[in-house]
């Protein structure tokens, strides 16, 4: 296979038809559900999945649910409404802030941040996010999380996260995705619909999702597509420009945090091509030449992708269960 920067180009019409048939066959014929529920965030992935789901089941059999919380960027809701209108769906708004207050999500998260930054106080306007180093190509640093706070007057300060604080911040933040999952299943079960997943290949295979959160769905519509291919489908489906141009965000932390700084560490235009090349076994020198990178840089990215795939296998694993041990069951005693 010859490597080039066009290697991930799709036939958007053909791919759309393939996904629509996949959704119809699985949701209607296998799951016996009438339609689909999609959580829309104002981001590109859920926008494309909404467009595909509407093509599969028609707008009357699709529910688009917006689920902001108090940390969400207000633009997410306005983009969500524009998206729903674009595909002829009436959007539902489910603000999950009260549910998260009930789970003590914010208090637990903020207490962990305060152990690293004692001055951090969300009620006074401090914001926070967790980030990875952004020098993967240049230095090949490992995935070592830090917490960044933004003071009310706009100054940023970053410190490394100790293990306990990292775990508690992530666990508290994951309550958001799990609350959204529960909300989506309410709407799906109330209508005999299926929950349609919005994870792309980058998120699903590298573990950038919450188990039983945004990973808790009935079917994955675009988990086979690289992010750059999702953009190709977005153009074909007519996703609003504002969503196509929006920088992919986690929309999870109170401070603005894009997906590159939180997890992927590279622009998707670079990451996707390198990942595809790695999967296809294209030699590093050929990839380096095609991308205008050094062989060391290509190898660093290959290594990082492999590490993330290996260390997040747990997220994609179904709960293991033992088979009944029939051989240990005693034979019934024979009557004499």
């Amino acid at each position: 296979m010859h490597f080039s920067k066009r290697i991930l180009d799709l036939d958007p019409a053909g791919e759309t038809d393939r996904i629509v048939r996949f959704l119809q066959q699985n949701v209607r014929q296998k799951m016996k559900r009438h339609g689909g529920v999609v959580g829309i965030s104002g981001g590109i992935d859920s926008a494309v999945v909404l467009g595909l789901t509407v093509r599969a089941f028609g707008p009357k059999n699709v529910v688009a649910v917006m689920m902001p919380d108090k940390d969400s960027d207000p633009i997410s809701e306005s983009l969500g409404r524009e998206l729903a209108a674009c595909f002829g769906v009436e959007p539902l708004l489910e603000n999950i802030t009260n549910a998260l207050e009930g789970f003590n999500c914010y208090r637990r998260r903020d207490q962990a941040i305060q152990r690293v930054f004692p001055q951090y106080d969300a009620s006074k306007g401090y914001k926070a996010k967790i980030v990875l180093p952004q020098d993967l190509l240049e230095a090949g640093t490992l995935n070592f999380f830090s917490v960044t706070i933004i003071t009310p007057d706009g100054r940023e300060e970053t410190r490394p996260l100790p293990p306990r604080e990292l775990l508690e911040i992530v666990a508290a933040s994951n309550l958001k995705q799990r609350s959204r999952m529960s909300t989506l299943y309410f709407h799906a079960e109330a209508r005999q619909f299926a929950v349609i997943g919005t994870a792309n290949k980058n998120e699903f295979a590298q573990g950038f999702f919450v188990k039983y959160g945004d990973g808790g769905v009935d079917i994955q519509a675009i988990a086979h597509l690289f992010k750059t291919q999702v953009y190709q489908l977005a153009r074909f489906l007519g996703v609003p420009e504002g969503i196509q141009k929006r920088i992919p965000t986690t929309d999870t932390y109170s401070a603005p945090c894009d997906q590159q700084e939180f997890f992927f560490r590279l622009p998707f235009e670079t990451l996707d091509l390198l990942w595809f090349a790695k999967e296809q076994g294209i030699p590093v020198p050929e990839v380096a030449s095609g991308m205008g990178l050094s062989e060391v840089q290509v190898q660093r990215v290959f290594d990082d992708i492999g590490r993330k795939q290996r260390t997040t296998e747990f997220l994609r694993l179904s709960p293991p269960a033992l088979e009944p041990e029939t051989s240990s069951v005693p034979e019934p005693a024979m009557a004499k």
Partner: protein
Amino acid sequence: MTDKTDNHQVEPPIRDFIATNLLYSKDFPHADDASLLREGIIDSLGVVELVSFLQTRFGVKVEQQEVRPENFDSVAKLAAFVRRKQAQAVA
């Protein structure tokens, strides 16, 4: 507890820490130069735990830009990193 003086005592506590906290085992079954990253022993939480351990156990300050495979990929590399940091602190 910190140990800044006895260079010979660097590898054993590193092996013990990795065995107990990352392998969930009593023993460290790998060679000191075995790649912890290739074996999938260290994930992002494991990196954070290792940094915290090195700082607490050996009293060294680990900077974010030092958290790279050249320093963290094996017991041998971790030990060499600790010794370099300790030597820098003394100098």
